[in-house]
């Protein structure tokens, strides 16, 4: 696998353009290309889990000068999340996207987005990270507006403007770092910043990064684009955006830069924890009153990302014991993976419901568990998981985060975590009542179960929710530990420069 590490971006990039060329001959071919490519990537990403950390010098250029790719526990974990959810979203798209025109263009944009996200995750070069961030973002702007209706275009435009501002802030920060250190290589930057220390310029750069990547992660003061953008996109894209994109472009980049490059810091820790708590509370409260299926899920994404952010913030605190920091990171990473699974499940389920009923308005839905038993059951499992009901996976990750907060002495944040857990339960019970149970409206009496290619991803994701809840010990030992220790060990990351 080591030799072929760059293929994670090269394959989808090549396939995106090949697809547009071949689809001029036959429209059908794009389905096969998309399935084949995401399938290969998913298999490759699972194989990556069994690799020891390594670095890859692109074009065989020596590290500080050439582009460096880094593979460690964290990037392997993110690769699995991106590519497996990507594969399931592609399977879901076969039938769902038939209701839209220009399917080949959709799949090309989809693969560009995957290429961008994979690139962000595997790269060890600051400017490279920015380029891939833009590839993924620009593809997602186009995908949000794919329906080309009035609302879709408005949401896409809003997302484009805010995302553009965020990207500018990030680029600005990278420029500052470059002028200060003369290098863009991330391990090299980490070494140089160790010498420079926490000067005012570094502080400003960190502020720019928190704003830029925080907007991509939709932390609360920067969240305004998400509740419009995620519901407007086609359902598989909503699943990718909420399930993967905000994590790969936002959370992952914040983790990588704050832990491995800037290093632990009291102030950064306090800011990120505060943003996390704010996101949890505001996202959760705003979700309660929503009448649109997907909009409620979008607000819930903001709230759940708050849990991950607060865990990251706690682990960033220099004074925190190693046990607490590790516990918080394991909880945060586990919640990240879990959220990817159940939020994409719920968004895909909303797509299946919309495909059959033609509406996402919660007031017009109801009693669907009788008409769509499989979709209904999957939705129920997804909402129970996200609400933190044992034995599903969401329970464990929230429990670990809250435990870590209490052990770290953050009683208020811990209590906020518990209360937001209750709020989550409230609006997901409401969601279940409005969609699955209750009275079946007259207009929906002829609704059938969704087609097989739409049900299959739902079933797989629901099974994952249960399996990751029950077998959580195995996941913790194998995956999360190596990802968390990759983050906490800044020395190891710096040593990648000399081929570590």
């Amino acid at each position, binding site marked *: 696998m080591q030799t072929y590490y*760059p293929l994670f971006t*090269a394959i989808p990039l*090549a396939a995106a353009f090949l697809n547009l060329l071949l689809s001029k001959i036959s429209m059908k071919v794009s389905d096969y290309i998309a399935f084949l490519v995401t399938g290969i990537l998913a298999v490759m990403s699972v194989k990556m889990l069994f690799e020891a950390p390594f670095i890859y010098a692109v*074009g*065989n250029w020596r590290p500080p000068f050439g582009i460096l790719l880094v593979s460690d526990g964290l990037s392997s974990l993110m690769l699995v999340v991106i590519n497996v959810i990507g594969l399931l979203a592609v399977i879901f798209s076969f039938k769902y996207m038939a209701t839209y025109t220009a399917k080949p263009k959709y799949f090309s944009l989809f693969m560009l987005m995957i290429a961008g996200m994979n690139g962000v995750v595997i790269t060890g070069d600051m400017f490279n990270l920015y380029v891939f961030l833009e590839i993924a973002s620009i593809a997602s702007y186009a995908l949000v507006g794919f329906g080309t209706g009035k609302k879709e275009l408005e949401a896409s435009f809003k997302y484009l403007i805010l995302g553009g501002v965020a990207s500018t802030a990030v680029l600005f920060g990278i420029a500052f770092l470059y002028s200060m250190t003369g290098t863009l290589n991330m391990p090299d930057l980490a070494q140089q910043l160790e010498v420079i220390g926490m000067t005012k310029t570094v502080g400003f750069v960190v502020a720019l990064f928190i704003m830029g990547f925080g907007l991509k992660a939709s932390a609360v003061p920067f969240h305004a684009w998400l509740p419009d953008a995620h519901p407007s996109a086609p359902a598989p894209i909503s699943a990718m955006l909420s399930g993967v994109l905000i994590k790969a472009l936002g959370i992952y980049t914040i983790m990588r830069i704050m832990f491995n490059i800037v290093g632990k810091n009291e102030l950064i820790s306090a800011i990120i924890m505060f943003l996390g708590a704010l996101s949890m509370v505001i996202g959760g409260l705003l979700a309660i009153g929503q009448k649109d299926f997907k909009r409620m899920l979008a607000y819930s994404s903001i709230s759940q990302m708050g849990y991950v952010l607060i865990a990251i913030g706690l682990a960033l605190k220099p004074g925190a014991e190693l046990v607490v920091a590790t516990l918080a990171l394991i909880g945060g990473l586990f919640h990240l993976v879990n959220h990817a699974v159940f939020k994409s499940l719920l968004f895909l389920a909303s797509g299946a419901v919309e495909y059959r009923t033609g509406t996402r308005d919660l007031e017009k839905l109801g009693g669907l568990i009788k008409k769509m038993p499989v979709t209904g059951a999957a939705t129920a499992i997804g909402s129970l998981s996200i609400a933190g009901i044992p034995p599903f996976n969401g329970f464990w990750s929230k429990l670990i985060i809250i435990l870590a907060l209490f052990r770290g002495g953050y009683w208020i944040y811990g209590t906020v975590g518990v209360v937001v857990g209750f709020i989550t339960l409230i609006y997901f019970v409401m969601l279940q009542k409005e969609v699955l149970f209750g009275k079946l409206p007259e207009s929906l009496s002829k609704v059938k179960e969704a087609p097989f290619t739409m049900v299959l991803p739902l079933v797989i994701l629901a099974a994952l929710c249960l399996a990751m809840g029950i077998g959580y010990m195995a996941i913790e030992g194998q995956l999360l530990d190596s990802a968390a220790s990759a983050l906490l060990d800044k020395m190891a990351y710096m040593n990648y420069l000399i081929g570590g």
Partner: protein
Amino acid sequence: MDRLEQEIKDTSKGMTTIVKTIVRFVMGIIVIFGAYVVLYGHVTPGGGFAGGVILASAYILLTLAFGKEMGLRKMSNRWASLLDNSGALAFVIVGLLGFGGGYFFYNFLGRGEPFHLFSAGSILLSNIAIGVKVTASVFAIFMTLSIFGRIIYKAAEGEEPESEE
């Protein structure tokens, strides 16, 4: 009188005869300069992107002076899309060919003599691929932006907007 001279005399489409005549003279120079910037990108300032934009601006100038029929005749939507995708694909393939030497984007060609056209290995190939891609996509973006203008213009005159691809 050949077809081009007829087009130049025809004042119903595009700009005036003076503009069209001048565009006819400078077109060749712009294209040669664009090609030069693409091909010598590795030894002089410039490169695939800059040269591609210059080449695309030649097409845009042609469209502005002679009207959109002329521009689309020189590069139709279909050709723009084909060139756009094949340029990008060619760039990825240059990278993938590097696996022959064991690394992604490995320089699989000889280094050549410094400051000559055939030097710097695979960078020349990458520049050509980027040049083709940028030429086609900048022109395609220009034509796409003009679609809405055309629809609004027609709607203002009370015609049914024709369906554009």
